[in-house]
């Protein structure tokens, strides 16, 4: 059987991977996501909005100049690793990624936010590990790693509903709207909203998280999903939570939806949100 990569495997050194991921994590914490500013401050709606935009610019400038993180919550780091069919990794990838996180969080003035055990008298792990790693084997070539620096305030808005399989799109939209209306102001709006529809409870949540990796402004290639994303984008922006919750400027930066087939009795819908910093980036080797 012919095909790409037949018999020719490429070995990827852990040190090369580590170096790239280290640089990426440094950038994500120190540099304002260029996709965000235009959507956030492109048109200013009021005095509060204007003041906050001045602060965002000053903050970005100080962060870059002084190597201080944009936000004190330098998050936990979640990695999405896609391993193509032609590569062999030198060691289990979670080892490499944990090392990269440990090194960059120890060397820069970031925050160690991980504690263990999760309940009771927990201790800080003092290097922001462990990190969370999802690995997917793909048909592609090489390895690509997407990192998401995720703050606790936005993670706390994650939600899962097990709808009746007969639920309408309207019922789903209402649940999502209610959720963002009641809690959206806590997670540093304008938010990036990720939604997973279908699959199982766990894959719906995973899709919602993965939807946050999409570029702002990019639409789903599936026409009905793309229309749904646009509809929710307009609807959630009508909530007028606004920049920093002050009712001026956008409430959501974008909405992304991923879908999967489902069992006839089951309709899971999950939502995950990201704060306005959207600290997502990718490297490949």
């Amino acid at each position, binding site marked *: 059987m012919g095909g790409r990569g037949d018999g020719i495997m490429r070995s990827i050194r852990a040190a090369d991977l580590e170096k790239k991921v280290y640089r990426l994590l440094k950038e994500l914490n120190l540099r304002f996501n260029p996709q965000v500013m235009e959507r956030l401050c492109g048109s200013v709606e009021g*005095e*509060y909005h204007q*003041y*906050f935009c001045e*602060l*965002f610019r*000053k*903050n970005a400038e*100080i*962060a870059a100049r*002084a*190597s*201080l*993180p*944009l*936000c*004190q*919550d*330098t998050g936990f780091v979640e990695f999405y690793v896609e391993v193509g069919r032609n590569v062999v990794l030198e060691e289990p990838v979670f080892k490499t990624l944990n090392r990269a996180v440990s090194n960059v969080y120890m060397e820069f*003035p*970031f*925050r*160690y*936010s991980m504690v263990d055990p999760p309940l009771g008298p927990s201790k*800080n792990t*003092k290097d922001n590990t462990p990190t969370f790693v999802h690995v997917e084997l793909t048909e592609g070539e090489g390895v690509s790693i997407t990192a998401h620096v995720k703050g*606790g*305030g936005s993670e*706390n808005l994650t939600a899962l509903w097990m709808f009746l399989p007969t639920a309408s799109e309207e019922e789903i939209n209402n649940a999502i709207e209610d959720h963002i209306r009641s809690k959206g*102001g*806590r*997670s*540093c709006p304008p938010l990036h909203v990720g939604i997973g529809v279908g699959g199982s409870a766990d894959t719906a949540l995973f899709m919602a998280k993965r939807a946050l990796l999409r570029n702002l402004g990019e639409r789903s290639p599936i026409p009905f999903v793309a229309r749904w994303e646009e509809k929710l984008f307009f609807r959630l922006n009508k909530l*007028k939570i*606004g920049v*920093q*919750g*002050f*009712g*001026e400027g956008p409430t959501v930066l974008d909405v992304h939806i991923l879908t999967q087939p489902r069992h006839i009795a089951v309709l899971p819908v999950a939502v995950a949100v990201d*704060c*306005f*910093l959207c600290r997502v980036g990718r490297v490949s080797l």
Partner: protein
Amino acid sequence: MIKNIDITEPYTSEVFEKLRAGDRVLLTGRVVVMRDSAQRRLLSLCEGGSNLPLNLKGTVVFYAGPAKEMAGAPIGAIGPTTSARMDKYLKFLYQQGVMATIGKGDRSELVETLNKEYRRVYFVAPSGVAAFLASRVERSEVVAFEDLGPEAIRLIEVHDFPLFVWIDAFGRKYRHP
């Protein structure tokens, strides 16, 4: 027009009661930084009849946990964390004499009631601008629970630290006009 008010320590009820939801405040003075774990510990010390490691009377509490500081800098990146998680400790803080709290995001109706009852204020600080806010902090020291790392209780001194009144001393909440 946003109303701008400068507040300098000592913090008095007279000044805080004049604030209205939506006002912008530049705060200068000392602020106690503490969050979830530290408040849980303080409450259990108090309930167990022990003395607290610091006096909270007349203080302003900032719900925050700073990042590490660079060598020579007074503090690392600092910014507010979600206040709603700590609503359950607010009555305790007010009973200890805390004058105001600073955090991010809306809070439960309980906070409106408590603010009115005790005539205290809830401010929000801008979030996601922690490098900028660090430049408004002049001094910082850990005063209790050092083992909690970023969650230790700190006393910081801020200068022109930007805040907005979210729930004022009459229980009124900011609403966009």
